[in-house]
């Protein structure tokens, strides 16, 4: 129970910080918007194309925007060296990590909530598509990216070129999740097939990597 309170405190603190400083949230949103706009120039935004590759376009946009949010997860702690403060506290590392997972997840979802309708408009997604299926995919897929990305964000703050290293570490590991979320989304954008299998795979990915990230939290959250 105490662990849960610590996780909640970390989570609430992160969100409060983001809401107060607003600048990064605004910047992330605008960046995500730019990605979608650039995509509509790079690809013909016709309904027929969306039916074929819309899932891929949507998730690449989410991934780019997400990388900015994920980078923030631990970079937020650098200016005042608050990370050292966190690490000197007796709080279990796994609880801190769990709080960070949750705050990254919520921030990414917030950006995606704005991005998804925008994408639907710019890429002429039919309003009749099965939205609940897409939303479930987004939730499962975002958790997959948030968990792995937050862990690697903790890893990359110790390194040189940290902003570059995060995608280098994250992208190879999330390949199976990316395949699953793109395929599941595509099912609802007009390709025949069932999303069940992909949801199960995404759920499995989420469970496995959340567990691993919490188990190995000590390794990246350690005072040197």
């Amino acid at each position, binding site marked *: 129970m105490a662990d849960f309170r610590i996780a909640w405190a970390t989570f609430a603190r992160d969100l409060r910080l983001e809401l107060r400083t607003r600048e990064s949230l605004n910047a992330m949103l605008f960046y995500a918007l730019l990605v979608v706009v650039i995509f509509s120039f790079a690809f013909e935004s016709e309904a027929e194309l969306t039916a074929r590759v819309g899932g891929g376009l949507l998730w690449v946009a989410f991934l780019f925007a997400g990388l900015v949010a994920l980078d923030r997860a631990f970079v937020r702690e650098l200016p005042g060296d608050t990370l050292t403060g966190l690490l000197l506290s007796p709080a279990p590392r796994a609880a801190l990590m769990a709080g960070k997972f949750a705050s990254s997840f919520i921030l990414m979802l917030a950006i995606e909530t704005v991005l998804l309708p925008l994408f639907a408009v710019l890429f002429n997604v039919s309003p009749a598509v099965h939205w609940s299926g897409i939303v479930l995919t987004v939730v499962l897929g975002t958790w997959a990216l948030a968990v*792995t990305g937050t*862990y690697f964000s903790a*890893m990359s703050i*110790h*390194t*040189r*070129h940290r902003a570059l*290293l995060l995608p*280098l*570490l994250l*992208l*190879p*590991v999330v*390949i*199976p999740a990316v*395949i*699953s979320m793109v*395929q599941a989304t595509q099912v609802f954008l007009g390709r025949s097939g069932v999303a069940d*299998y992909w949801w199960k*795979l995404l759920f*499995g*990915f989420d469970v*496995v*990597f959340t567990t*691993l990230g919490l188990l*190995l939290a000590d*390794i*990246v959250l*350690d005072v*040197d």
Partner: protein
Amino acid sequence: METPAIARPARPNWIVLWGSLTLTVLLIGLYLALLWAPEEATMGIYQRIFYTHVPAAFTAFVAFFINLVASVLYLLRRSRLADAWAVAAAEVGVVFLSINLITGPIWAKPIWGIWWTWDARLTLDLVLWVMYVSYLLLRQLTPRGDLQPRLAAALACFFFVDVPINYMAIRWWRTQHPQPVIFGGPGSGLAPQMYVALAVCCMAFMLLGYVLLRLRLEQEMDRHALDDAQRALLLEDVGG
């Protein structure tokens, strides 16, 4: 002014022994693969790249497995030697998987008519390659010290659980690859001489991998010894 002697681990003669053994087996393998083994019925001479393609993949997988075991050992024991094994194995693995990924398209072009296809096995190979390149980059971009091996070992654990998930995702996504020829059903299989050539080539590649790994291992341990000596010198300067 006397230059302090740096304690350097004595280098045994193993390199001469293992090196010449590897070279011999490699030459025998080359002879068996290119001249002695019979020509394949449909693919003709192109099939002979098989004796490089398969052993390279085999060696790479063994190297990645060593990397995993060494990484877990590092996390449990925090031993420098385990970490040195992990780096050496990852580098050797990337080199051999690169050979596999380069010979693949060369073979595929005349036979399948295309360089590359996103079929399950090819994709998985590529994903594995991408993963271990990112592992080596992480090591390169992390400052030396205790942190570097720790982060690298954690990443290796992530890879370990990621591979089976990848396997399922990719298999569901794309399966068009020809079924395994070697242990496939009736009608498939190799001529006995082909097995011999393949086995010898595998042995040659494994030996080569081993020699490279040992060399890299010693280099890594030398580096640690050098770092220690430097640190000792610095402390001496401060103290005296």
